[in-house]
């Protein structure tokens, strides 16, 4: 029940903690010391603190704050302190734009990052372009952001929907069978996922037993499940987002369908797993990052420090997005030896995240042609009887470069301002 404690991210609480730490720092180790004249390098972060997207937003903010503290402790960026300014975009593109405008004109930020949902990501990408600002989308998955709508100033740390679907197809197909049924979110994200799975399924000789498009925000899936039962597929593939997926999984468990049909799908998040009752924890999914990687260097130390910082809360993929994006800016600025937008953009193209930031094998890099980070995917299955944070068993870590579409196929034609 102390979920409530750790789940609640309180900015002022953090400030107090920060102040206390700062005070302790002053007494114990007087490092780091900035020259008074050093102006901080400012990163503006717009992420949902309220609204349904809040749990994911909180994780991203915590990850970014954690990186900020680490960076400053280690001497900042080019001997300048890093300052992270967080604003609540509430998952609403209009609010996110207002906040971004505020960060730009009042706080004079150097870089912009954030957003959990695709709508806000697309809006901020365009906004940042207009304001000649580098923008890192931390968590909006829509393909077009690094595809048909790709922009010179926009990078993305989380995966594309395409990468999500290709992560676990093999496992599901080989383990459970050829006849598949899809329950898919009825918008671009879901359609793209289903099209991709279907292509892979047909290529491997499987069949589509049926499919249903469920509107975003569906709370009652029983009518779809009635059809699933009638069609008797081997695999039930759920391509749903956020709460919808949680609701659907609960109802599948209540109807006992998971006992007869293998259930799996694309994206799964630690935050979602936490919201599921034990009976509804099942299935094969893909995570975009997972804290339990015994064979990857630096991960254990990061997880331990993170959990210590946030009252035992473990980092999720979202936390890592915030963490890695913040570090990516630091690395690119140092590589460019400048905070000039175009120079940093050029430095970030092809930037390989070093192991202590990547926290995964396969050396992920921001691809130059479309600015997509080629992060690894973590297919696996949910541990039904697991206790938080031990809720997922990773079966393989698949390199992102194997999964992502080539930039040309994704539809990205990068143009730079003159």
């Amino acid at each position: 029940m102390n979920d409530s404690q750790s789940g609640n991210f309180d900015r002022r609480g953090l400030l107090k903690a920060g102040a206390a730490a700062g005070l302790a720092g002053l007494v114990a180790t007087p490092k780091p010391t900035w020259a008074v004249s050093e102006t901080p390098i400012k990163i503006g972060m717009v992420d949902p603190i309220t609204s349904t997207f809040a749990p994911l937003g909180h994780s991203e903010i915590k990850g970014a704050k954690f990186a900020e503290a680490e960076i400053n402790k280690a001497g900042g960026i080019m001997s300048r302190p890093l300052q992270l300014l967080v604003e609540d975009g509430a998952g609403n593109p209009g609010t996110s734009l207002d906040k971004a405008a505020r960060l730009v004109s009042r706080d004079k930020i150097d870089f912009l990052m954030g957003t959990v949902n695709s709508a806000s990501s697309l809006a901020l990408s365009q906004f940042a372009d207009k304001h000649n600002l580098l923008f890192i989308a931390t968590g909006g998955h829509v393909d077009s952001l690094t595809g048909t709508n790709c922009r010179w100033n926009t990078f993305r740390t989380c995966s594309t929907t395409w990468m999500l679907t290709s992560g676990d197809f093999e496992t599901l197909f080989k383990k459970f069978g050829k006849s598949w049924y899809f329950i898919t979110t009825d918008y671009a994200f879901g359609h793209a996922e289903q099209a991709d799975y279907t292509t892979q399924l047909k290529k491997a000789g499987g069949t589509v037993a049926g499919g249903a498009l469920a509107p975003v925000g569906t709370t009652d899936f029983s009518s779809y499940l009635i059809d699933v039962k009638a069609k008797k597929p081997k695999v039930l593939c759920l391509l749903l987002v956020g709460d919808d997926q949680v609701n659907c999984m609960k109802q599948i468990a209540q109807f006992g369908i998971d006992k007869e049909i293998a259930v799996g799908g694309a994206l799964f998040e630690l935050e979602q797993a936490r919201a599921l009752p034990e009976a509804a924890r099942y299935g094969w999914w893909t995570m975009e990052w997972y804290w339990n990687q015994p064979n990857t260097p630096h991960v254990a130390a990061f997880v331990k420090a993170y959990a210590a910082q946030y009252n035992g809360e473990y980092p999720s993929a979202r936390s890592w997005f915030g963490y890695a994006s913040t570090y990516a800016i630091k690395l690119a600025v140092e590589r460019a030896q400048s905070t000039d937008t175009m120079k940093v953009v050029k430095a970030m193209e092809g930037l390989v995240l070093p192991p202590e930031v990547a926290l995964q094998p396969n050396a992920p890099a921001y691809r130059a042609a479309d600015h997509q980070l080629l992060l690894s995917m973590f297919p696996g299955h949910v541990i039904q009887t697991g206790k938080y944070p031990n809720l997922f068993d990773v079966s393989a870590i698949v390199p992102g470069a194997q999964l992502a579409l080539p930039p040309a196929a994704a539809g990205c034609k990068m143009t730079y301002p003159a």
Partner: protein
Amino acid sequence: MGLVLLFNAFNGLIQGAFYALMALGLALILGLNNTINFAQGAFMALAAYFAFTIVPYVGFWGALIIAPLLAGAIGLVVEVALVRRLYSRKDPIYSLLLTFGLAFIIQDLIRTIWGAQGVPLAIPGFLDHPLSNTYFFLTGYRLFVVAVALIGTAALFAVLRFTRIGIRIRAGNSDLETISALGVNIYLLRSANFVIGIIFAGVAGILAAGQLGLNPNMGDTLIMPAFVAIVVGGVGSLVGSLLGGLIIGLASGITTAFFPAASEVVIYVIMGIMLVVRPRGLMGQEGLFE
């Protein structure tokens, strides 16, 4: 297809029973307190979170009784401190904006106290299974929800018909001034009515949480169908609200079988047709609240 359609119709009725339960509390408050209670969804969430907190101590059944009462107590405070001040203002905008603001505050408090992260509400294990393999969508819990909706509605009608307070509430609905002149303390009556409405919201909230889990925003999506149920059923008629809930549940269940994308829009279309054909709704009384 025939069987699937039948299943969906059944399923829609189950959903409709739930809408009806929500609509009743809303309709009650709309009637005597003359207030469109926008905070109804927030009170649902609040009761559900109370239940979440006390389940470890009193179990699911205890929580199902105690948590709505706790929410009702908060409702009483809100009515006495705030809503009551607005009865003398005949323009409905004030009570509407007041409850709209209250919904913001309650939602924010929930997020601050319990956190933004969604959590599950454990329900008794024996309810969590389908009753038969053929009719697998009839889980114990869903039938339980229907049963609670029916019992709650029956209890409400019994209270309104056979108890003194109930008769006064009904009388107040049709003519508040007269019963006030007859010496009934209408302040007390309205407080009691508001609290009963919130208790209904609380029960609905806990039942919803058992199926969908908890998050601070859970009330937002649940309140709109209840509004539509009231409009379709006819403002001022509790039986109408009940019927309205069942009708829109059924309609959206059947639509889901053919055209899932329209399953939400269809209830508004029904409302639109009703407004053109029979503006006062199924059971609405002419001239009430105008």
